[in-house]
């Protein structure tokens, strides 16, 4: 169990008022990277579109990784693409989060057996939230984004910022302690 999100008064971190304030700001200004590879990208577009309107919750897209907080793996990831995505992820400024959107990004989905598709974004990136669906409807993506909000609401921010540890949840395949 990741200690970061372990909530509640018992056992978890006491979250200071300052942390709460800072996290409130962070939570309401999640900027996602404008990046999609396949079908799910269309739903990503629709999420920013008028019906769902992620902007309501303060989520806007940015074109450059330097200014984005969330990387949404929207769509199939091929091997040719994976190194580029890794690079984009690396180039994002802390704090950063990753959402795997759709079956392809979760596990490779229907292309799992294909020779050129990575079987899951978590094989090369620390994914925070997995959204099932093929494609997940915009509201589902929004829900995933809200889970990220919940997650960072609970982070002991100052402690993290001062300790200088990269914000990486452990890749799923690695043993969890």
């Amino acid at each position, binding site marked *: 169990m990741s200690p970061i999100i372990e909530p509640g008064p018992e056992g978890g971190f006491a979250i200071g008022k300052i942390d709460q304030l800072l996290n409130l700001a962070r939570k309401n200004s999640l900027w996602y990277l404008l990046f999609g590879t396949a079908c799910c990208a269309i739903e990503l577009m629709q999420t920013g579109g008028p019906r769902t309107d992620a902007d309501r919750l303060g989520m806007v897209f940015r074109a*450059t990784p330097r200014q984005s907080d969330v990387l949404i793996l929207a769509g199939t990831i091929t091997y040719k693409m994976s190194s580029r995505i890794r690079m984009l992820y*690396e180039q994002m400024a*802390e704090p950063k989060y990753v959402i795997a959107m759709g079956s392809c990004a979760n596990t490779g989905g229907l292309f799992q057996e294909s020779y050129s598709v990575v079987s899951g974004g978590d094989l090369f990136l620390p994914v925070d939230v997995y959204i099932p669906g093929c494609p997940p409807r915009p509201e589902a993506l929004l829900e995933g984004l809200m889970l990220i909000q919940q997650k960072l609401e609970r982070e002991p921010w100052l402690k993290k910022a001062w300790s200088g540890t*990269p914000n990486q949840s452990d890749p799923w395949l690695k043993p969890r302690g």
Partner: protein
Amino acid sequence: MAFDLAMVLGFWIVSFLALLVFLLFGKLIRPNVPLPVKSSSYECGERPIGPGWFSFNNRFYLIALVFVVFDVEIALVAPVVVVFRDMLAKDMGWLVFAEIFIFLAILFVALIYVWSRGDLRWHQDIPDPTCKPFEIGTKEVNQ
């Protein structure tokens, strides 16, 4: 007026310091995790080809060149324009008008000259590809 000028200087200094303060304050509450890949320069996810500094298209330069001259012209005309109403009251309006007019007219000539010479044009229009008509049922394609 001294006060006004001091105020201007004060604004310069304050706005400079303000950003500095914000950045310093931010130092307290932001992480700093430099990694080599992270600070590589962004190029759409690719590794950059060639240096980031390059020699660019010099048309920008030509245009800036011309416009700096016009900038200068504004510096010259402004004081004259300011006194235009004064002079009008002194019934010397036509003199001022003539002066500005001649000055601007000469510069306008410069603009027209550069324009008509095509020096400011960017796009050497690509010659029209010779388009052959293609109609279903005719036979003159690719021959």
